[in-house]
């Protein structure tokens, strides 16, 4: 971490200031607890056996750590009538999320690039219309989209879901990239044009490598949105093509037998883990990108 220019500013001192700081830290600690306790409960519960859960307290540490619940959640829990665990649905989600994130990010980057650096009459109106897409409540488009997918022959399939997520992600990805590219100096584009590069030559050769921070933000955002989506998944897929979010709901809501809290918790963590992973991995790139690529031209 580089030392900030503001870190040397003289701060007020004296008993009043100390008390205020103490208060500040107390509030911060409270909020930390508020966020961390549920996570703790989930992890702890997932590592306990069912007997221990029934006997002990919600908040206690597991006496004996067992990964049985995780194993069951992964490949044996019943989703509806099928008892193969979450594994196939996790792959569904991966197969849906990766292409949808990649396509919507690339198209968003192209949109943002064209809207800022290859201006054409009406560019602002087009951008306003695209942006409008970010404000459409998704339940509004469920029926027309279902019909569209039906006519395209993509109803109830993973490719259909990819299409839906790509289309509805474009509003956000375009916005992110447009706002990033607006800060990229036009001089660089002019230099590249004089250097003989065309639309795609400049895009892939110059602009895209510069936009690593925007790419990371967009990928994190899109991945989180698409992976965590439940509404489109439940509306546009059936049974075997369900994404993991829908499958998780089915695991938890399976009414037969005893309620296996540890399996439910493990399943929920499995369903949420990839977004966390993307954030940690991409976030590191993000910080590195900022310090390595933040170069004034």
């Amino acid at each position, binding site marked *: 971490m580089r030392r900030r220019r503001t870190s040397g500013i003289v701060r007020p001192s004296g008993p009043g200031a100390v008390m205020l700081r103490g208060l500040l830290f107390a509030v911060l600690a409270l909020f930390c607890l508020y966020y961390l306790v549920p996570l703790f409960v989930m992890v702890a519960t997932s590592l306990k056996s069912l007997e221990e859960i029934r006997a002990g307290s919600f908040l206690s540490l597991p006496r004996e750590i067992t990964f049985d619940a995780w194993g069951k959640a992964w490949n044996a829990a019943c989703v509806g009538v099928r008892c193969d665990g979450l594994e196939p649905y996790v792959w569904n989600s991966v197969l849906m999320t990766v292409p949808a994130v990649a396509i919507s990010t690339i198209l968003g980057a192209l949109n943002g690039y064209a809207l800022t650096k290859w201006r054409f009459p009406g560019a602002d109106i087009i951008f306003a219309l695209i942006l409008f897409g970010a404000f459409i409540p998704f339940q509004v488009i469920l029926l027309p989209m279902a019909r569209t997918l039906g006519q395209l022959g993509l109803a109830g399939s993973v490719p259909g879901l990819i299409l839906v997520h790509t289309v509805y992600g474009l509003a956000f990805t375009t916005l992110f990239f447009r706002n990033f590219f607006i800060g990229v100096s036009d001089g*660089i584009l002019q*230099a590249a044009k004089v*250097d003989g590069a065309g639309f795609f030559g400049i895009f892939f050769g*110059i602009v895209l*490598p510069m936009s690593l921070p925007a790419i990371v933000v967009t990928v994190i955002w899109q991945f989180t949105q698409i992976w965590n989506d439940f509404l489109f998944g439940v509306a546009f897929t059936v049974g075997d093509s369900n994404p993991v979010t829908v499958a998780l709901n089915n695991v938890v809501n399976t009414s037969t037998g005893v309620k296996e809290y540890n399996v439910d918790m493990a399943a929920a963590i499995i369903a949420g883990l990839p977004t966390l992973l993307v954030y940690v991995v991409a976030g590191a790139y993000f910080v590195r990108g900022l310090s390595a690529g*933040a170069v*004034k*031209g």
Partner: protein
Amino acid sequence: MAAGIRLESVRKFFGANEVIKGIDLEIEPGEFVVLVGPSGCGKSTLLNLIAGLETLSSGHVFIGGQKVDTTPPRDRDIAMVFQSYALYPTKTVRQNITFGMETRRIPKAHQDAAVEEFTHLLQIDRFLQRKPGQLSGGQRQRVAMGRALVRNPAVFLFDEPLSNLDAKLRIEMRTEIKKLHQRLGKTAVYVTHDQIEAMTLATRIAVMDNGHIRQVADPATIYENPVDLFVAGFMGSPPMNMIRGRLVRDGGLFFAPLGDRDGVRFPIAAAEAARIGAPDGQEVVLGLRPETIFAAGTELPGPDRFVFERPVAVVEPTGPDTMIVFEIGGQDLIARVRPEDAHPPGTPFRFEVDMGKAKLFDAGTGLRI
């Protein structure tokens, strides 16, 4: 080979805003033409029109005899250096320099030779693997120059390439650019708002104002024979003194400053007076360069000298010369004297002016009389 450039009635509108208002300009092969003018007068726009980075609203552009009105920048055989350098931040210095050759699929061996020659010439061969962000301003400037030079184009276009450098580096690079031009002999169009840069670099200067070219001439002519008050006032630092007043015909032609109650009358030099047919009492502006006003008796006597006395208002030493500000009829004037001749403020001072160098302008139109 160098190519000439011809502009014919070039106009550019941005929306309803006319930024280039009909410009004709002929640039010979190998010339170094500087477009100079105040900020916002349209210099960059005109340069971009030559480069093909802006589309003409009307008129024609010829490069090397070819009409290039609709030719994209990459096919105009030009290279350009930008004010912000516009280096590609994610590419190394070497990649920055070779990008233009890569897109043109120039053979690798040729690229390497060009990189070697010009990075050595510009003394950036030690930084080839660095990114622009790891270079100082002066080094980035050199990389931008290198990127333009390696392509060996027919025409170089410069858009204020030195204005982001500090004063010392600016003077150094100015000299290097001049050397490079003398060595390569390529046609260059150079945009700047700095009149000293224009004077030092140009073989010809085009002074622009508000979308028009006011005057195109070699530096000496621009300085000594400005066609109007704008050109006269823009070139030179400190600027030309411009005194409002009237012509007086009284056994000779004289200039009487407006608002002056001491009866100072500048005699117009005989050669100039013979040309001027303006009537007695006509309102004019007298232009006197600061270096043509000096302490009386400090220069060898010459014709058309006029001596007058005024109290010193302000003394501004600059090192080699000292500027003395004084007043005539409520108008501030600056004289450039030797430091040892300066007097403290408030004391009377005898000034001598070389009226042979004085210019007269029409007070209404601003044009030279």
